[in-house]
């Protein structure tokens, strides 16, 4: 079973980071700096793509004679700070003055920038080394140019603050002054290139403010819907209320009578299964302004053939899924013989864990702008995956990808939603059909009704305990409509990819393990949301581990440490029936190390004061979960006041993400992840009845607000010289179970279904 969704595809770029000097011919092709200067390209090609695709040179880095260093941001910015973190690696390595660095957002173009899909918490993981090499190459060239100019030894020169200095003679030249000479030099050997010592970095490993900060606080930052084209019209679309429904007839006359409404255009939908890239069937009201389009949409009269999903009831499906977990499922991992453990057990704890559909709820609803002129489509969109958008637009509009240009704006939150290009395709189809520049504007209702939801899930775990209070067996049944089912109705089991997200790599030293899956169908669009299946898997596993710890009479922190046993690298040898994805990396490059998991457990226990006596009305809960190659442990403290109201005074995280490139953004991702996790745990749920989503806006689909959110979130970063790993998603999974375990300590009630009200 191969993951049928893009974020887990192998991304290792064997030849990534090779730096090249664009040729004279390339200069022209690229439209080089008018006043000369130094231009460097970086190859982001993965091996297989490079073989099949003509390489198009890019300019990744340039230094102009006025001493401005320009660096391309080739990943999408959605709040994780990547527009800052990758360029600052380059700048720090080359010795550039960060205040004179300009960041330019790349268009979506795989031939120039490799895979730009920004999800799976892997930008820093993948590009830390390539960015350092690019910076070191530039530094090497600039120093060599200066050394030649002065007739001195290059080794006696240093580059800092965008200046090369020869301290012996007191001479210095700016990068700008050296740029033209540096351009004439031969590139250093990429394999022997000397990189700086970690301790000498001025930006890496420090709190570095994000580059868009001033624009954010003055309202100047440009998000998707902020792009304005001359003559642009606004489209608001009435999409099918049930996935797979089709329009049988419609009357647009009342809509067209509304002042400002110009046309009504039908969008033919993808049918069933809906797919990840195609729009849903709908009627687009095109108007002079957004308000007229919204009013026009309300006035549409549409008769739908609701199709196969019209009787779908998500609550009923969860009940069916729950029953299915009583049966034998498809075995996905087996160690020992669970039946033997069960027979010899003094106690069997059997619990089910339920979690609902979740919507991403980005505060910026999807929006995209398209203009079709003389056979060329130009797009502006807040997209995580500009190339997928480009290819999907080309396919939907019968164009060559070469005739589609995708400009990436800032993303007003994404969390996986804005990987899917459906809204971009809508804009492109309408621009082509009408010949007008079009902004497709989703409303909040559109966003909640037509999301690609995080799948609802049912899990059953049986834990066997012997007479000596040892956990001897672990039988985990998991069932949830798979992401793949959105494209392929025959994909009935969770994929290997989804199981690899915090289920199949159950790390504890239990002699008998059996992990099984069951069939379920998708009746709505399923996608991926911040940490994906780790969310429900961590909830079930960390909740059960807490319950087992209690049953064997151990503290849950100590129990987790004991169950991880010796320091080792897990390889799940022969136990996993399919492929263990390890987030697209080999276990050699990124081993699964129990030592590092134990480290974060010990650290979070120490920092949170775990085990100390707590005042009455307060309680702590613990959870630990590795995801996206990052090791995270979490302690949540709860407090109940005299009126019975429960709040979250403190969350502690300990995280081992290898080298923390921008420590401030590592912390901010964990702060935000704690709050995202609190919404998952306490407030949010999507349900469907008669095939329709029952929540309409932020009154029905609730997100945590300031008074409900954890008052203090402490992030303890393990100092490490290991390869950096991502931090966007890993904070989310352990939060809900840590909160649920604290809730049990406080109230005596175990939590078996999300969301639960505090």
């Amino acid at each position, binding site marked *: 079973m191969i993951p049928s969704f893009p974020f887990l595809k192998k991304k290792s770029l064997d030849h990534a980071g090779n730096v090249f000097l664009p040729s004279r011919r390339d200069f022209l092709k690229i439209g080089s700096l008018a006043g000369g200067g130094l231009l460097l390209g970086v190859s982001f090609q993965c091996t297989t793509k490079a073989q099949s695709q003509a390489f198009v040179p890019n300019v990744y880095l340039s230094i102009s004679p006025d001493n401005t260093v320009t660096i391309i941001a080739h990943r999408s910015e959605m709040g994780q700070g990547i527009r800052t973190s990758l360029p600052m690696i380059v700048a720090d390595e080359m010795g550039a003055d960060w205040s004179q660095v300009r960041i330019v957002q790349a268009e979506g173009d795989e031939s120039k920038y490799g895979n730009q899909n920004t999800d799976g918490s892997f930008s820093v993981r993948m590009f830390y080394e390539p960015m350092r090499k690019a910076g070191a190459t530039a530094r090497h060239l600039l120093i060599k140019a200066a050394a030649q100019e002065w007739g001195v030894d290059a080794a006696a020169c240093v580059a800092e603050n965008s200046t090369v200095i020869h301290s012996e003679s007191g001479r210095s030249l700016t990068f700008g002054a050296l740029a033209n000479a540096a351009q004439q030099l031969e590139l250093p050997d990429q394999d022997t290139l000397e990189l700086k010592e970690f301790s000498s970095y001025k930006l890496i490993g420090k709190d570095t403010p994000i580059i868009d900060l001033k624009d954010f606080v003055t*309202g*100047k930052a440009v*998000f998707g*819907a902020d792009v304005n084209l001359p003559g642009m019209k606004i489209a608001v679309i009435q999409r099918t209320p049930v996935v797979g429904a089709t329009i049988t007839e419609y009357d647009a006359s009342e809509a067209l009578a509304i002042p400002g409404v110009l046309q009504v255009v039908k969008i033919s939908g993808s049918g069933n299964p809906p797919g990840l890239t195609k729009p849903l069937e709908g009627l687009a009201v095109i108007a002079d302004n957004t*308000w007229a389009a919204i009013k026009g949409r309300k006035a549409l009269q549409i008769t739908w053939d609701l199709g196969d999903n019209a009787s779908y009831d998500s609550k009923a499906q969860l009940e069916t899924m729950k029953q299915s977990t009583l049966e034998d499922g498809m075995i996905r991992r087996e160690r020992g013989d669970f039946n033997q453990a069960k027979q010899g057990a003094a106690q069997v704890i059997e619990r089910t864990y339920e979690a609902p559909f979740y919507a991403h709820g980005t505060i910026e609803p999807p929006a995209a702008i398209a203009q079709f002129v003389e056979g060329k489509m130009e797009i502006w969109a807040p997209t995580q995956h500009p190339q997928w958008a480009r290819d999907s637009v080309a396919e939907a509009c019968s164009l060559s990808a070469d005739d589609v240009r995708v400009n990436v704006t800032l993303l007003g939150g994404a*969390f996986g939603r804005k990987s899917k290009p459906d809204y971009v395709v809508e804009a492109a189809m309408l621009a082509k059909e009408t010949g007008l520049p079009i902004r497709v504007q989703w409303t909040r209702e559109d966003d909640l009704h037509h999301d690609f939801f995080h799948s609802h899930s049912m899990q059953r775990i049986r834990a066997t305990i012997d007479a000596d209070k040892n956990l001897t067996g672990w039988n985990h049944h998991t069932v949830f409509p798979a992401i793949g089912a959105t494209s392929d109705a025959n994909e009935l089991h969770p994929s290997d990819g989804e199981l690899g997200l915090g289920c199949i790599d159950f790390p504890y030293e239990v002699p008998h393990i059996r992990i099984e899956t069951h069939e379920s169908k998708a009746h709505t669009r399923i996608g991926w949301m911040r940490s994906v299946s780790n969310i429900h898997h961590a909830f079930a596993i960390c909740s059960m581990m807490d319950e087992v710890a209690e049953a064997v009479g151990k503290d849950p922190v100590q129990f987790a440490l004991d169950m991880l046993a010796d320091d080792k690298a897990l390889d799940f040898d022969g136990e996993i029936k399919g492929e263990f994805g390890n987030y697209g990396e080999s276990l050699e490059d990124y081993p699964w190390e129990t030592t590092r998991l134990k480290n974060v457990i010990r650290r979070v226990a120490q920092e949170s004061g775990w085990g100390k006596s707590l005042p009455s009305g307060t309680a702590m809960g613990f959870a630990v979960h590795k995801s996206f190659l990052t090791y995270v442990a979490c302690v949540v403290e709860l407090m109940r006041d005299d009126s019975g109201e429960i709040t979250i005074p403190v969350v502690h995280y300990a995280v081992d993400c290898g080298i923390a490139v921008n420590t401030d953004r590592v912390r901010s991702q964990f702060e935000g*992840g704690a*709050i995202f996790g609190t919404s998952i745990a306490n407030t949010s749920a999507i349900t469907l009845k008669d095939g329709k989503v029952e929540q309409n*806006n932020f009154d029905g689909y609730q997100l945590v607000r300031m008074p409900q959110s954890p008052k*203090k979130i402490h992030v303890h970063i393990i100092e490490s010289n290991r390869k950096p790993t991502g931090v966007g998603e890993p904070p989310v999974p352990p939060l809900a179970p840590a909160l649920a375990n604290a809730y049990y300590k406080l109230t005596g009630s175990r939590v078996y279904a999300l969301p639960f009200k505090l």
Partner: protein
Amino acid sequence: MATYELTINGKQYQVDAEEDMPLLWVLRDLLDMKGTKFGCGQALCGACTVMLGDSAVRSCTLPVSAVGSGAVTTIEGLSENGDHPLQKAWIEHIVPQCGYCQSGQIMNAAALLKNNPTPSEDEIDQAMAGNLCRCGTYNRIKEAIFTAAT
């Protein structure tokens, strides 16, 4: 369609709009002032917050016909150079993540401080409860408000 005289960020504007058009779309679509954001259209998330006089209002549900002669202040007009104490505090605490809700957060906080220059933590919690941030920047927002208030 009617003509409305609006005072926005100290300047006079004349707009022709349907009387039920929310101020949000007047700002964004008719006046091309994109700093104020659309989030929910139902006054549930606060992304569209502007000040009308000294009060925070949700521009997504305020019809242009109800704005009257009051002075509207948007994020673009909060300060001339981005140096309002709240903006400086937001920068000091590196508050934003994606940044999208921050115009509304800052305008809501500005109204709070106009009416209560030294709010307590509870007062900040209550005043800011209508502004959602999906990235989860609430704690830094609170710290920034404390910084700006002192």
